[in-house]
């Protein structure tokens, strides 16, 4: 999907090659919210205002509050606020183009990127990760699903669209070859540069199906029920994680503790439901450093 653009890796490579190795620490058995103890629990980040990079244009993860554009809403924005309130650490959201968010973390311009970022071992060479969500792909089609696209195989011979350089684009290209060997027609594929651009291809009948993150597809359908519906969904194996400065153990621990507490207290489920994200996609929190 959109979140795994190759160009991001190219941009990231401008940063430093990391050599630090950090061990994966499990969450403490009894994690709890103790904002007053921030100085003893997370001494290196206590008293700081942490900068969190988000793009502010990807509902339901990070988007502008329609009632006040200065405010950020979304699953990622709310989880971040709750997690650091629990740790007793001040935060500040900085918004920028998605592809610039991880390079900024690597360069030390921000402390973390919390914006539907996939963990990959390659990215873990330059940043550390705490997982919290399982990725899933959704297929957006026009209302009434006129081309009856109900599974990936149905896309053969149709007009498909995916973000440029994404895993979805690659999987459509692969599928197209398979369609031909199976004696079906190939896929006619166009790529889009930004998500709203992709949805307009479907709305204007320039493409039959668009694949991207499941929850974004759900969000588009919910907001525009007379234009779109979901053709199908696939749960993938990608881990969605918070990416933070390589080697910042206190920050990793604060993220891990906070997310664990949110899950145990039921607060996380509440936030998922608020943004219509399937709670079964929430996954075990773990620190990944390589």
């Amino acid at each position, binding site marked *: 999907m959109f979140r795994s653009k190759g160009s991001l890796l190219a941009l990231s490579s*401008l*940063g430093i090659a990391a050599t630090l190795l950090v061990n994966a620490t499990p969450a403490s058995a009894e994690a709890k919210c103790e904002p007053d103890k921030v100085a003893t629990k997370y001494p290196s980040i206590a008293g700081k205002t942490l900068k969190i*990079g988000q793009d502010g244009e990807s509902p339901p993860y990070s988007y*502008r509050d329609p009632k006040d*554009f200065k405010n950020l809403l979304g699953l990622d924005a709310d989880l971040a606020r709750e997690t650091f309130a629990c740790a007793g650490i001040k935060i500040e959201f900085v918004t920028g183009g998605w*592809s610039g968010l991880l390079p*900024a973390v690597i360069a030390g*311009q921000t402390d973390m990127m919390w914006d539907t970022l996939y963990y990959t071992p390659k990215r873990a060479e330059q940043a550390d990760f705490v997982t919290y969500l399982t990725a899933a792909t959704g297929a957006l089609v026009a209302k009434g699903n006129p081309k009856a696209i109900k599974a990936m195989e149905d896309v053969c011979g149709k007009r498909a669209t995916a973000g440029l350089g994404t895993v979805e684009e690659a999987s459509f290209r692969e599928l197209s070859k398979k369609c031909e060997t199976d004696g079906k027609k190939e896929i006619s594929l166009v790529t889009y540069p930004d998500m*709203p651009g992709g949805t307009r291809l479907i709305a204007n009948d320039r493409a039959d199906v668009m694949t991207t993150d499941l929850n974004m597809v759900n969000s588009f359908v919910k*907001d525009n029920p007379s234009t779109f519906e979901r053709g199908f969904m696939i749960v993938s194996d990608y881990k969605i994680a918070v990416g933070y400065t390589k080697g910042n153990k206190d920050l990793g621990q604060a993220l891990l503790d906070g997310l664990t507490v949110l899950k145990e207290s039921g607060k996380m489920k509440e936030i998922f439901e608020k943004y219509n994200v399937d709670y079964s996609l929430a996954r075990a929190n773990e620190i990944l450093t390589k």
Partner: protein
Amino acid sequence: MKTISALLNESRAALPHAILAFLVVTASAAPALAADGPPLKPWQEFLSYIVEPFLLEGALLALQISALAMIGGITLGLGLALMRLSRNAAIRGSAWFYIWFVRGTPQLLQLVFLYDALPPLGIKLDTFTTAVLGFALNEAAFSAEIIRGGIMSVNRNQGIAATSFGMGSFLTLRRIILPQAMRAILPGMSNDVIGMIKGTSIASVIFVNELTFRSQQIVGQNFKFFTVFAAAGVIYLIMTSAISACQALLERRFNIEIDREAGRGSGFTFFNISLFGFGPKPAAPPASVARTPAPATKDNVGAAASLDWIRNITNLTSPEPGNESVPFVVFRNVHKAYGSREVLRGIDLTVNKGEVVVIMGPSGSGKSTLLRLVNHLESLDWGEITVEGKYVGYQRRNNMMRPTRDLAKARADAQIGMVFQHFNLFEHLSAIENVMEAPVQVYGEKPDTARTLALNLLASVGLSQHANKLPHRLSGGQQQRVAIARALAISPRLMLFDEPTSALDPELVGEVLGVMRRLAEAGMTMIVVTHEVRFAQEVADRVVFMDEGLVIEQGTPDEVLGAPKHERTQRFLRMVEREVDPA
């Protein structure tokens, strides 16, 4: 019926008002977006987004970044353009390399590099600084080429004329070259400004939340791409219209085709750029200067407005009239070559005070080069030239002539007036401004004093009616008379004329020669390169004939013109006479 251009002009003038009115109406008509209430119609939504503070803040940010980056970029660009025009290959090369590199790499990567690759080196710039710096560094490369193109579009002779009056290279650039280059520079530069305002959107990758990124965020949340993007488009149009209006104003200002007399009061004159020599002018002078004589003071030469004006000037410059056997300009064994071509091959010549020396000879004989060596417009290869016993911009060290550091000052101190074949009047300055330029800018004369002097000088060459005209409105003969007045304005001790009538129509030659004749009669020391045999015959004290970089013969006009000894002189004179008198 109105012409299209008239309509365009009106609409251009009306544009700022129209924008203002539009904004006021929009703001009052637009319902608040965030208020709870009945859903808005698309047009209401569109209007609301135009005045949405969240978007306008983004627009302001784009403007701030563009303004600062443009200032930095143009400043750097001017420096780079001058480096590109340098004679030093290393300086030229490094400017070329910078431009090649910056123009050749994507700006997105430059921004990401500044923002994300410098912190490990200990340089951590914030978002705004990075954007301003990044855009400025990028703009420098582009504007350098635009400015260089502008400078190259200005005739080289403009700079040579300025140099001959002792104007330094920076002064020449500021007063003469850049104002004329502006016409070529402005359209390209406006393109860059508009491009930059819109292009700041790529800086979203380094967390710059400008207009496009903010509108994308709103669309990302509500999918109303049509109304939001249309509103953003209108905001961009308003900003870029302002730039286009500025461009129109500035182009008018720097357009020398428009008579400035007519341009006055057109509504554009509030734009005063005195930096570039377009300062406000006092009211027009009285029609007849002769009727209002000013007292003749030391600073106010020629202001007596009497008929023997030139005598006034020369009286100042030659306190001992009549002492005509004093050597004034002395050439000793002068050599000059361009590459392997030897132009002057050992010239020995003396010009006495108050003497009029006419130099003749076929083209390529080195006459003009010899003149240019006198006021150090060209450098000597060998030998020496003294004016009133002093070198102009040379020091003798270890028996070698070495140019001094401040050549412009040396030329100014020498007070040598020069008149060129192609007049070389400063095209963007009126006749009187041309005459005032060197006294005010080089000699520090007060503008009022210089103006009085200039008016008197223009009156004496018969051009008081044309004082406020730009050169291109004048005939060739009139232009050359302005050029003579301009040369006289620096109270010259020596006048150099480089084929002053060769570019003129035959019927205009007389008026110029008339002025020169009176100057000679007044006792001015003059070296004149010309083919005008009659002028030489009647006015010259001595005629020097040159061929192939050597003085072949010299003597009184009667000797050289009446009974030339050398075969080459005879042949040349036969040719010239045939040209002048084909009958």
